Every structure is written in C-alpha cells, then in structure tokens.
C-alpha cells in the first residue's frame, strides 16, 4: 500500500495538567473519506487545531505526504498559514467567514497563498498582476459554481442563509488547492435537505481528487460518506474501522450510550 498522505503518530496535547489528546494515531490515504467521531469534549476539535497549526502539540508527529510524492513534511510547529501552503485546508465548526466581504471575495482570499502580487503589483497593476487577478476571479467563480453559490457571488457573506454559509466555508478552503480537506462538523445546524445536498457535495469533492477528513455528529451522514472511521473518547482513540465494524463495536456504543447498555 502507498504511503498515507497524512500519518499521525503518538499525538499528545496537554493544557496545563489536562491531557486533551493522548497518544493518538491516525492515517488518511489518498482519495479516502475518513471520519473522526466521538462524544462532545472528546478532543476532536483540539485534534484539528493541532493539525492545522493553531496549537502546537506537546508530543507526537504529523507527517504530510503529497499524493504521488515520496517526500514527507512534518507539520509540527508550523504556523497555520504554512500548513495551508503545504496542502491542507480546513473549515470551522462555528462559521468563521469574513462577513463584511462579498461571497466571491471570501473565496478569493483562499487564493492568496497560491498567488503573489504585492504592493508594487497592486499600485501599478502590470500585465502579470492583471492576469493573476483575472485568474483568481475566474477560479473563484468556478469553485462557487461547484458549491452552488455562483449566482450569489456579489452578496455580502453575512447575508447568506446558514447552509449556504457552510458551503461557502468549504468553497473558501477548496480555493487554497488542498489535497487534504479537513471539515469540522460541516452539517452542524443544517436541515435534512441541506444535509443531503452536503452529502452529495462532499462526494463530488472526493471524486475531484481531494482526500477528506471530517468531524461529524450526524451519524447518517458519517455512515454514508466514510471509507473508514476513527472514534475518540477522552482524548484517546477507542476504535477504528469500516462503518459496519464501528456500528457494532461495543466500545463505541459504550462511549456514546453509557455503561449499562448491552452491545
């Protein structure tokens, strides 16, 4: 089997005396959709924050290997923007759009790390800068079209309905050209119709060649999407496997439903 594009080993994160992540191992292979589930407070979002450079993990290793490449890079200790440059982008559990900017501009921000015009380019608008801006606009429109928001491109992001805001977050992350996309509870607060649309969108993104790692509470969505599932509780991994295996795993059922329930 090829090298996993994301290989995490022994990831540990301490906050003062509290161990939020305890020697966690996880891997994602190219083209996979992997879900990370677990009860509230299990440390899933902390895990994402360690991965994306918002926190620096206390111990452990995070290795990223671009698909088809033999060279791995360590993400440990990198700043969030450097992590994004390496090809890993994320969305947020609580929507963090740039609300005073237009929908299109939100996506254009995602192109920042793949473009390079600077002060002089902005002031003189030479041919190279104009071409780059044109490409940013066209590509952002194309991404918006993919998530079904192109007709709302010039609306303010804050004026979008909730489900559309979540899709815009995905579009913005896609604009950074990630090979691995991290989705933090993408279906949170969505109605069944919106969740169904999201299910289809994530499958499409996967078909386009992006690998996906998602945190999600909506079990129907998780079971429908995932190739493999990792389960966490109290900062530890308690199970991993295919959806069918996870569904009948006694440890998982215990973590979700409590001690007294028979598996």
């Amino acid at each position, binding site marked *: 089997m090829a090298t996993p594009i994301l290989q995490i080993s022994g990831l540990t994160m301490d906050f003062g005396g509290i161990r939020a992540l305890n020697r966690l191992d996880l891997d994602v292979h190219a083209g996979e959709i992997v879900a990370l589930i677990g009860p509230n407070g299990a440390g899933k979002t902390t895990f994402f924050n360690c991965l994306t450079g918002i926190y620096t993990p206390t111990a452990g290793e995070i290795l990223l290997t671009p698909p088809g490449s033999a060279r791995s890079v360590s993400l440990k200790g990198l700043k969030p923007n450097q992590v994004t440059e390496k090809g890993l*982008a994320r969305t947020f559990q609580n929507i963090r759009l740039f609300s*005073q900017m237009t929908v299109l501009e939100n996506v254009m921000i995602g192109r*920042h790390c793949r473009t390079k015009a600077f002060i002089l380019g902005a002031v003189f608008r030479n041919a190279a800068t104009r071409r780059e801006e044109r490409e940013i606009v066209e590509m952002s429109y194309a991404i918006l079209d993919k998530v079904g928001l192109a007709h709302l*491109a010039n609306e303010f992001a804050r004026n979008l309905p909730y489900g559309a805001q979540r899709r815009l977050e995905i579009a913005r992350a896609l604009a950074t050209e990630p090979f691995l996309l991290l989705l933090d509870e993408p279906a949170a607060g969505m109605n069944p119709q919106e969740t169904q649309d999201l299910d289809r969108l994530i499958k499409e993104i996967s078909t386009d060649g992006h690998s996906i790692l998602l945190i999600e509470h909506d079990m129907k969505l998780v079971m429908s999407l995932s190739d493999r599932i990792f389960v966490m509780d109290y900062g530890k991994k308690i199970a991993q496997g295919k959806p069918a295996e996870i569904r009948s795993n006694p440890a998982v059922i215990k973590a979700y439903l409590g001690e007294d329930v028979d598996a």
Partner: protein
Amino acid sequence: MLGFKEIKNGLLVSLWFVFLTFPLMVVKVDPVERIVSWRWENSIYVAIGTFVIYCVVKIIMQHRTGNAAVEKEAEQEKESIIHRVLASPKQKYTLIALLLAVAIAFPQFSSSYQTNVMTTALMYVVLGLGLNIVVGMAGLLDLGYVAFYAVGAYTYALLNHHFDLGFWAVLPIGGGMAAIFGILLGFMIVTIFIVNRLQDSRLGRAWIALREDEIACQAMGIDKRRTKLVAFALGAFWAGIIGVVFAAKTTFINPASFTFLESAIILAIVVLGGMGSIVGVILGALILILLPEYLRALSEYRMLAFGAILVAMMVFRPRGLISNIRRTYHSDKKFHPPIQH
C-alpha cells in the same frame, strides 16, 4: 408625545447636569479679592436648558423611530447616490475633474488664510488615508500614528538644518502657500489613487480578511505577521511624507506639534468618515479640520460645538459618514442558481 417616564428621566438628567456643572457655573472664586460668590441662578438655567434639550432630543428620536422605515429608505437612497456616482467611471471622473478644477483655482481666488486652512485640511486628508490602511482596512488600532509624522518632519528639518538641502527650503519663502497647496493636492491624488488600488488588490483583501477574522485568515494561508507589518509600514509612509510637508510649511517644529491629541484627531477622521471608505475619510478630514476653523466666529464655544457635533455623529451615524462598499467582480461565464432537488 412624552410620557411620565421620560419627564421623570429628564428631571433626573437635569439634576445630574446641575451637579456636574456646579463648580463651573455656580461657584465663582475671585483670587484677588479672596471672595467666593455663589451664583445659584445659574444652576436653574442649567436645569431648564438640560431639560429642554433632553425633551427635544427624545421627541426627535420618537419621530425617527416612528418613521424608521421611511428614514431608512431615504438613507439608502442617499447612500446609493454617492455609491452610484462612484460606481460609474464616467460620472466618477467628471466629479474628480470638477473637484480638481475647483482645487486648482482655489489659491488664485482666495486669501492666504483660506489657502492655509485648506492646506492643513489636505494634509489631514492624506494622514487620514494613510491611517485608514492601518485602522480601516487591516483593523489594527494605532494610537501612535503621529510618531511617523514627527519622524518625517524631523528628518526634513535636520537634513535641511545640517546639510542645507535646499529645494524644499525655498518653497515656503519663494513658492509660497499656493505651491505647497499644489504639491499637497498632488500628494492627495496620488494617495487616493494608491489606497484605492490597494483596497481591491490581493494585499488589500488580505488586510480586510485579517480585520474580520484573524484565525480564519491564517487558516486560509495568509501570513498574519507579514501582512500586519506591511499595513503598518504603508500607513507610516504617508505620515512621514506629510511630516516633511508640515515642517516645510511651518518652518518651525517642536515636540509639542506631535502630541497624542494629533494621533487621536487622525484616528477620529478615519472612524468618523467610515472605516475603510476612501470618500468617507476625505469627508471626515475636511469636516474635522475645517469645522473648528470656521467655528472661530463662535470664539470660546467653538470647541464645545465641535464636541457636540462629534457626539451627535456617533449617535446618529455610528458606522461613519459613508460606509464602505466592496467591489463586485463578474465572470466571463454566466451562472444560474442551482436547480432545487
């Protein structure tokens, strides 16, 4: 009309004002004669005045909320006129050409006092636009902006003093006020041009995104430290340039010219005008600099009136005179709303 509750509040507010103005309005100490006179009648005037103003404001506010919908529509209409003119390039350039013609003709037809006042106003326009990069776009609070202004002024003054760098030195004497005015006008136009271009560039978008949400911004691959530093540096650049002009214009500088109050005024220009809006900042600078000057007719009361206007502005237009508009982009392709499944 006003209910019992409003009247009660009005009376309480009047009492509070009587108390606050007591040392100023009632007690009068004559240090020469060593006597204290109590002017109790003044407290009655204060009470009546406060109560009347309170009631008038309340009635106006009631009226406003009553007609909120109408007002809002009218406001949008008003906003859209400015925005519409700016949106259409033809109208925009006509407007700019018109203003330019007026500005160029101005020193020829007005007194040197008027030119001087306008020169100061233009200096603050450039300062405001410079600080707008830092505060309005990147969202960084900069209370020491005037330091860069001082650096520019002292750099020029020292170079001129020790090395006798002549060109600028001749300006205040030879070229006169009109020349400085003209140069400033040029600076202002260049600043507007550059700030306008920055605003819709890759860098400008990054600043605004940084202002909106730092964590999301970093997660989108933007280097926070570098982007902030560039905003600070570009803002400081304009302050330095205007510092040079200031030193050349006044031919005398000392640290008293660069106090915290100056920083605060420039910040007020940006906030009052509308953070991030170029037209707003220009208007803000003109109002904040020209108003105290033309209120001189009111002599002692001018700063009081100035303060009152600032407070009124914050009450009625807390987001600034002119809100910022974002540029819209269009694709070569046509997009339609997705079909609902």
